[in-house]
Structures are given as C-alpha cells and as structure tokens.
C-alpha cells in the first residue's frame, strides 16, 4: 500500500496515506461547494496548479475544471519538483524518498491553499471580464457545434448538455487519439494504483423501487419516434421469418434493446395471418428466475394435446421432452407449434444442460423456435452439435427499447453497488415475513433491532461531529459503518429473554431470517461472527415500531 514515490509525474500520490489528507479533502470540499454555488465552477487542485505554472491561463479556468468534474475527482497533485525526476527518484534511498514526498506534500498543500485563495480572489475580481471572454469563446464553439447559444449575455456559462469541448482527451484515463482495441486494453489495465477518486455514493441517496418507477413514468423518451421507426423496420421482416420457419429454420434475434415487444407483435401477426386456425404459440419468459425447463416442455405438451394431456408427465425434463416429441410425431397433421423464448441467454436458461434440451426441442420437426438473446457473447453457449440442432438463422434486431420486464433495475444496480441489503423488500417485506413467523422469532428480531439501533445511535452521534465524515469513514477500512452485533452477545440476550434455550434453537431462528435475507452475517478479523440487518436506520425503526405495536 505504501508507495515510496509516484511512479510517473502524472500519477498522483494518493496512495500514500498522509496524515493531512482528510483535511485537504475537507478544505477542498468546502471551496468546491462555495465556488460551485456561485459560479458553477469546480476549480480544483490541478487547475490551481496549472494556473500556477502558466499564469496566462488563469483567465479561463472553466474548461479545465469542468473537465475535471467529468470523470474522476480530484486528488492531491504531485509536486512540481518530481516532474521528470524519475531517474533521480530511482537512485534515491527509500528513506530519502519518503522524506522527500512528505516534504513535497506539505509544500504542495501550502501552495495549493494559497493558490486557491488567490484564485478565489481573482475570480471574484475578474468575474465579469472572465465571463465575457468565455461567452465569446462559448458562442464560437457552440455555433460550430450547432447547439443552442446562450441568449443571456450575463448568464454564467454552466455545464451544458454534452461533453465540454476538448475535455475528453485531457481528463479521461485513455490517451489521446484512436488506440487500437488491444492497446486500449493494456493501457486501461496498466499496473499502478487505480486512478479513481475517493468519493463514494454516500453523497447521493440511492433510489428506491417506488422512486425509480415514479421517475421512469415521468421520463419522456426523446427518441420515441426513431425507436418506433426501428421497430417498424423489423416488423417488415415478419413474413420472412415466417417463411424461414416453414423451411425448418429456427430464428435467433440479437442486438441491443429489449426484443420483447417485437416478439409479442410477431405472435400477434402470426395469429392474424393464419386467422381461422392460428398456430399454437407458446411464449417463454426466459428471464424469469423461477422458470424451469420442465415447465416449458409441459406447457407445450399441454398446448398440443389440450385436454388429452396425461395427468402424470414424469419429473425429469428429458422424459417430458421425449413424450412431447412422440406426441408431435403422432400428430403430424396437426398445426405447427411456435415457441417464442424471450432471452434464451438469461441466467435461468444459461446452463449447458438446459441449452442442450432446448436444442433438442428446436430440432423437433414442426416445432419452431424463435429465441431472443441479449448478451454480446451468447453464441458461446452452443457447441457444434447444439448449433446444428438449433439450426438458427440470426437476425440483428436492435430495438433500443428499455428492458422493462427482463430484470428489476433497482435490484440489479444495488447488487452492483454491493448494497444487497436495500433490495429484497425493505421495511414492508421484512414486516411481512415477520408476521408469518412464530412469536419467539419476532421477539428475537425485536431484540436484534433494539441492540442495533442503540449501537447505531452512538455511531451517528460521533459521526455528526465530524464534518469530513467521508474521509473519516474511508480511513476506517472502506466499508460504510453499519451497526452490527456480535453473535455471542445476541445469543446471550436471547437466552436472557427466554427466546432460545439452546444455541441450536437460536441458530434455527436465525436461519429463518437468513433465508429471507433479513440479516447479514460475516466473520470479523478475530473470527467472531458478526450479525447485521440490511436495512437503513429509518427502516429499522419502522420495523421495530411495527413489531412493538403488534
């Protein structure tokens, strides 16, 4: 972790945990806040530093700072002294290096502080003139780009939609120019500390399901017309698909965007086309997590045989499939069966065994398979044999449609953020589960919540005192501080209250919570088991309230 010296002039020294670091961040935040509230600018260290080097650029710091806020956020910049001194650095002893770094760091900060102050003053003084200058520049550039030009001359140029001009090359971790893909890969995966900022999502409050859907409903898609046009283009190939089906091809649709609507429209189309005696159409929602392969086959059997379906089909998917195949064979004259599978590459169907069964289904004559695939690498699922059995004709059906049914956006994103807890069910869900649990389980959860809340109460108090809470938290090991309780403690409390007489029983109760993801458990450094609840403080309070009330 502790690096002795920055390995390149550009590489910032954030890796070295400096005692003054938090303070820097704090100072920085404050300036940031005040400035941006006034002008919408976010002058930052490097800007200041650059200004320091080239005073002539002082006039137009905006472009830079805008750019700055683009991607990664600021850090202390390395000192002037070590620019281009790599060879010198390498020759120095570790001790000297660290001493140098320490020295430079503080000097840097000093400079920074002074600089920022100077900049602030300058900004205030030359606010009007700077803005005017910028206005001119802005008009030229925007005129060239064909976007709207500012109408109000006194209006401060703010972040406008789109990427600030020229910022791309300067700020992004990707160097200028078009790199070939492999070069880009190596560049982005180069050694060294990750070049990301220390900000965390605690600065924004995450969305809940309700808020997400509320906002989603409010959103007006600017590309509605274009997307409809795209859909219309795809719709024109319906007869072609139908013909391909009739010639024993199966169809696989790929491309970006949800193809659900398109496929369902195809079903409508087929239905209308063969109006008096439409073919049997079975729709499979491949993305449904509880989907079983057997149920697909069973549904198809049911669709073919109608009331003749035997009551017992066998538990193995293979058996059902074979029964299905023999049923199809014996009813050759019967109309064909269309099986439309949404997202054949979704996790529930992704397994090789499932794909093999689906391939056998697809190879059955008079069963036609239309599958959609969303991921870029789905064709890796099929080997030579499966590919032959599927006999797919592929069509690019990029729709740009939002994936609304395929997955739950909020859950997915929270999982990505590592906030699993927020998902499941929140307060209502937990309450619901608790209602169905026996009395002593409820009591146990109540105790757990009380303990956690009292622990959290202490935490929150100490946190509030420190304005630079982010930095403090980061120093304490990364994870957001969550109220937790040790397993032992909770067990003691529980036995004191006569909830669980043995550890066995106690664990049984916890297991129930675990199954519903109402608690989290992990081992801490000493190996002791730590329990927590994946709810926010407010939610915990709410649940506790409900528990006590009932």
């Amino acid at each position: 972790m502790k690096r002795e010296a920055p390995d390149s002039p550009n590489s910032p020294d954030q890796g070295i945990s400096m005692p003054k670091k938090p303070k820097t961040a704090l100072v920085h935040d404050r300036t940031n806040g005040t400035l941006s509230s006034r002008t919408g600018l976010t002058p930052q260290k490097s800007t200041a530093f650059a200004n320091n080097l080239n005073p002539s650029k002082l006039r137009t710091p905006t472009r830079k700072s805008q750019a700055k806020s683009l991607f990664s956020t600021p850090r202390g910049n390395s000192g002037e002294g070590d620019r281009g001194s790599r060879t010198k650095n390498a020759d120095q002893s570790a001790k000297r290096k660290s001493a140098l770094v320490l020295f430079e760091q503080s000097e840097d900060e000093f400079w920074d502080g002074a600089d920022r102050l100077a900049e602030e003053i300058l900004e205030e003084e030359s606010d009007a003139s700077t803005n005017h200058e910028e206005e001119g520049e802005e008009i030229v550039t925007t005129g060239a780009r064909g976007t709207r030009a500012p109408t109000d001359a006194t209006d401060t140029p703010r972040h406008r939609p789109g990427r600030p001009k020229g910022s791309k090359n300067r700020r992004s971790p990707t160097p200028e120019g078009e790199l070939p893909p492999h070069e880009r890969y190596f560049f982005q995966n180069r050694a060294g500390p990750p070049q990301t900022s220390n900000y965390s999502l605690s600065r924004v409050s995450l969305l809940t399901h309700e808020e997400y859907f509320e906002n989603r409903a409010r959103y007006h898609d600017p590309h509605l017309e274009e997307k409809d046009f795209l859909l219309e283009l795809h719709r024109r190939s319906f007869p072609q698909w139908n013909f391909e089906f009739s010639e024993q091809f199966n169809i696989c649709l790929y491309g970006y965007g949800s193809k659900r609507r398109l496929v369902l429209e195809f079903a409508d189309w087929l239905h209308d086309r063969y109006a008096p005696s439409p073919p049997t159409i079975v729709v499979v929602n491949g993305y449904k997590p509880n989907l079983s392969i057997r149920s697909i086959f069973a549904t198809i059997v049911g669709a073919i045989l109608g009331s003749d379906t035997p009551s017992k089909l066998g538990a193995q998917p293979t058996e059902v499939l074979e029964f299905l195949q023999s049923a199809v064979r014996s009813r050759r004259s019967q109309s064909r069966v269309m099986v439309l599978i949404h997202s054949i590459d979704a996790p529930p169907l992704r397994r090789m065994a499932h794909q093999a069964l689906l391939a056998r289904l697809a190879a059955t004559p008079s069963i036609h398979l239309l599958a959609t695939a969303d991921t870029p690498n789905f064709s890796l699922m099929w080997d030579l044999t499966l590919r032959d059995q599927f006999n797919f004709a592929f069509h690019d059906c990029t729709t740009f449609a939002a994936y609304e049914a395929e997955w739950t956006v909020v859950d997915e994103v929270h999982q990505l953020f590592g906030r699993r807890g927020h998902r499941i069910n929140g307060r209502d869900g937990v309450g619901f589960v608790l209602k169905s649990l026996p009395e002593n389980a409820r009591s146990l959860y109540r105790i757990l919540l009380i303990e956690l809340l009292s622990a959290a109460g202490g935490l929150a108090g100490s946190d509030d005192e420190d304005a630079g809470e982010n930095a403090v938290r980061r120093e304490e090991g990364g994870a957001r501080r969550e109220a937790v309780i040790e397993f032992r403690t909770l067990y003691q409390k529980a036995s004191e209250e006569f909830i669980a007489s043995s550890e066995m029983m106690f664990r049984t109760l916890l297991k129930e919570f675990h199954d519903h993801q109402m608690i989290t458990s992990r081992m801490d450094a000493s190996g002791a088991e730590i329990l927590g609840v994946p709810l926010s403080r407010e939610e915990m309070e709410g649940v506790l309230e409900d528990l006590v009330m009932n």
Partner: protein
Amino acid sequence: MDATESEGGLGNAGVYVYQSRKPANVQRGRSSKKRKVVQSQNDASLLFVPLLDGKEDAGLVKLRYATFQKLWLKHEERIRNILQDIDSRIFEDLASFVNTASLTAGRIPTALVTIGSNVSCLTRLLERLASDKAKAVVVVLDSGDAPSLKTALKNIIRTAITNAEGTEQYQKILNDRAGPRLLPYDLNILHEYVRKKDTRRLVIAFQDSEAFDQTLLNDLLSLIRYGGWTALCNASVTSLNPSSSWLDRIPFVLLFGIATSSELFETSLPQSTASLIQGRCFEMHDVGGSIDRIYESFQTGPDVKLWLGHRPSSFLFQKSRDYFQSPEGFACQVKYAYMSHFFANSLSVLLSDDISTASPSRAELCQAVRNLPSFRCFCERLLEIDRHNEVHDLLEDDAHLFKETIRMLNSGQCRMGNLFQAVKAILILQTHLKMSKTNNISTLSVRALAGDLRASATVKEILAEMKKLDSESLQLLLSQIRKELGHCDVFQELQKELASFLKTEKVTGSLRSKHGNNSHYIMKTSTVRRANLGKASTGLSGKDLRYSDLLDRLHATLEKFFTTMLINPQDLFLNEIFLFDLKNPLKDTFTPRVRFAIERALSTPFDYLMPMSDEVEGHLSAGQPPTAILYQLYLESGSLVNTYDLWKAFYTIIGGEETGDERLTFTLFYQALSELKALGMVKSNRRRIDHISKSAWKGL
C-alpha cells in the same frame, strides 16, 4: 396501449400459451371465413409476400413459391443420396460388426468410431442403423442423459422400449408386471423385454463419449460385464461369479463416438475397464470431401436452374474452412441462399417451367426486367451494333420482351452449364497432366464464377502441357474426359480428329510432340542433355511433325473452347435471375457479429436511430440514449470505475444541472447501469466500495 395492460397477467408467468390480445379478432375471423380461406399452413399466399411494391400478381407469387419448392426438393433428394453414398462404406462395416460381434467372448463388443469434426455423421449412421432391418435396437445416450448411473440405466431402458413401442407401452411394461414391481433402472426389465422381442442386438451409442463422467462409464461397463448391484457396492468385482453378467442375457453392443482419437480414449479409461471391452476402430472420413460433392451437385447437376455466384460460394467455402461444419449445415446455408432468391426476387418466377403457360398480367414483370442493370448493358451492346429497332421493341413491346427474356434466360443457363463443364474439364486435365499445383473444385468454381479463370495461369499451364503430350497419352486423356464429361462436343471432336489422324498415318507406336521436352532423356546427364538438345527437333520423324501440327490445331480448339466457355457470369444478360450473387444475406444470417452489433449500437447509436431532426452530433451528447452515453463514458474509463464519478460524469453530460432534475437523471443512470450489467460489461467489485470493474473491452 392495450398491449401493456394484458401483458400484466401473462408476463409474470414463466411459460404461457399465447392468446390473442385483441378482442376484435372474432370479427376478423368471421370475415375471413366468409372468404373461405381455409388452406393448409404452408400455403404460398401466406408465406410469400407480393413484391414489386405489392403489385405482383397473386398467381405469380404462388408460382414463385412452387418453383422454389420444386427446385429445392430435387436438390434435397440429391444431397440425401450423396450423404448416403458417402456413408455407405462405413455403415456397412459398422452394421456387420454389430450383427456379427461375438457376445460369448466374455468381453463387451465395442465399436470405437472416430468422428473427428464430422459430428453429424454419427447421428446419420445411428439413424440408419436403427431403421435397418436387422433386429438391432439402438439407444443413443447423450452425456446429458447420464448424470448418474441410475439415471443412465433408466434412460437406456426407457429409450430402448419407447423407441420401438411408444411411451404407453413402456408405462405398461413398467406397471403391469406379474410379480414384484421393479424399479425403473433395473436391467431385468430390459432383459424381459429383450427376451420377449427376441432382440438380437442392443446397441448403446455414447454420442459424445469424452463428455461422459469417467467413473460413471466405468461403473456402467462393469455392471454390464459383471452384473448385479452388489458388484458395484462391493467393489471387489473380480471375485464375483461371472455368470451373473448381463452380457449373456442382454445382447449389448457398445458404440463410442470419439472426437479425439481412440488412443486417447483408451488411456482415459482405467486399465480394468479397458480390459472389459473388445474394441474395434472405425474411422470417419473428413467433412471437406462431402461438402465439395454437395456443392458440385448444386452447380453442375443435370437440371440446375439457379447458380450460386462467386460471392456466396467463396463465403460458404471460407466458412467451412474456418469452422467445423456438418454437410447438413452446409446444405442448409445453400438452401437459405435459394430461399432468399425466391423470396425477395420477383423475377425468380421466370425460372419456373410453367411461366410461359401461366398467363397472368406480365406488365409488372416486364417492367421489372427493364429495370435490371444487365438489361441496360444488353441494350447498350445492341445499340453498338446498330440494332436500334430491336432495342425499341424490347422497351416498348411487352410480349416481345417476354419472349426474348425466356430465350435469353435459356441461353444464359446454357452458358452457365458450359462454364461448369469447362471447370470440370480443367479439373480432369489438371489431374491427368500431373500438374504441380492442382486446385480442387471449390477454388476452381469460385474463380470461374468470378470470371477470372479464362486468363489465369492455370489454364495457360494446361494448354502448354497439352502441347507436349505424345499421341498415346493424348488418346488416353481424351477418352477419359469423354467418359467423365459425356456429351461435350469439343472433346468428342478432338478425339475423332485424333483417331482419324492415327488411322490414316497407320501409327503403331507413340508419336512425339515437337514441343515435348522428353524429360526422360534430358535429365540423365549433362552431356547427354547437350547432345539431346541438338537432337530434340531433328530426331522427330515426319509423322511426329504431322502429329505436332495436329496438336497445334487441337491446342487452338481447346483454347477457343476455354475462352468461349469461361465467361464472366456477371456479363450475361439476365444474370440477376439465374445467378444468386449476394453475400450479405448468408453472411448476416449465419455468421452474426453479435458483439459488434451491440457495441456499435451503443457507441454510435445514430447508426440505428435515424435522427428525425437534422441535429446530428458526432460525439457524446445529451441527445443520445442514456445507455449509449454511459457506455461511452465506460469505454474511456480504466478497469476500475468509481460509480460516483461515473454518475457525476453522466449527470454532466445529460445536462442535468440545467434541467435541475437530478433524481430523474439518476433514474436514467440506474437504468443504463443495469443494462450494462446485464450485458456483462460491468461487475461489482468487492475490494473497493462503490467501485465496479470493467469486464469487456470494445473491439477485442
């Protein structure tokens, strides 16, 4: 929108049977009943759409479909025959092995079939074996069918019985049995069945033997060999009484499909298991040959009407070289080419035999012919030779144009046939002249179709070699060509000419050509060579010289033959009708560039979303769909991404600060991020909080 409403109920189920979402359908159904359109599902009017802006005559649409069906059926038949022919030798070997394998030797008779890349071949063989008259029951076992020994046995028993008797019978045998009920994996069931039916052989085919669990195979083999469940439980297999073996009660023959090599397969089995089987190896042929033969049947068959141009041909061969491919897969792709042609080319109806008798309105069709690029070229050529009236007629008179079209179409098809005659001739000449570099039919065809064989080195070399032949080998060669090409006039004439020459000259031995280098003599020693060089021309008799004259004439004829035959198909009038020369339908359908499509959609969304307004912005702009914006930001980031930074950047680009609706933008951010996750481009990172790691790089 009623669509979204009714989806609510059904969309939640995993699988459901589609019901029409439109209540208005009842009425529609009635009206269509009134029109009495109760037809079979494969009716042409339902499968083919009228082309020419929808103005195509319904009769012609039907005819187009019928032509396709007829043409394709013929090809299908031919392909089946070819495949059967190719397989026949190995099939006979295999069948005789299965039928004669001795079951008493104490070892399980086993066929080890090395299939290599030719996966579909084994399936074909097994199908034939099962349908063979011999009383062999074939059970095909896939590695997926055998997760455990019990399931494997159950599947073997069930498949063996249901294949012959059907599912009901199987249930009956299982349930209506006198005595104690047996478990579905008890081989006694199979034993009784085999005894009752007097099955001579029971073949268990392991299709992908490498994929089977080794221990399971082991158990299965020892069970068959030594019998009894106890054998498995006790593990002391050898001490068991061999009389409990299933082998002498059920006539098992095993068949392993091996993709690697039989040696590798043997080493993967433990010694004890390997000693249980008595194996025999069968080697499958390579796919390449059968593909060439299928292609040949498409292009040079007796009544071919539609040819594949050089673009689809080279694509098909490229693909079969680059990927493992079954002959069926290859045929399917050619079929797709045929399908595309007849589906989308309204003029393809002219390939029908019944087009002249079918008398629907031809105005549209003729207009379509006039729009062909080759029609234009044709007219220009007519104008060059001052046949203005002809052109005038073609442009004005539909009946004349139609007659002319049919005539030219036939002549064009004829010339295509000739082209492939010439290709065949080249192929034969090449092998007979023992040329240094021989091309196979696929390369030759592709080059011929591209029109660059006429002036190629191959043809020149052949002609040069021809000149050097002596009379005997020339005679042999010509008779050979005649045998293989049959009715080709040029070679027939050449042969006649040669025969009469030899007759009149009363030649007994072989005559030498003056162009011949007589390599036998020359290569011996340098001194001899020097001497012979002088002699080479002088040592020729008068007969030899006259023969050389004849050779020169033959050479000229042959040269003319090649120049007239090896035309460029693209120059022919109406080539759009009898030549399918589009690569993209095949390429897009069979080698999709999935990842590229997604990357393109996200990095340059306006390729797909045709902007309705003229505001086109090159790079990142708020006008793009949110996911595209996020994706492009993601492309620029390092391998580790801070989500907060990403969000801020996204917010800036969307211009949220102007609209001030941060939560709405955040919602879009959520949506975009979830899509990136589902596309497998980001995954969560455990080590750093609120960071995600990148897992896909564009263009790699």
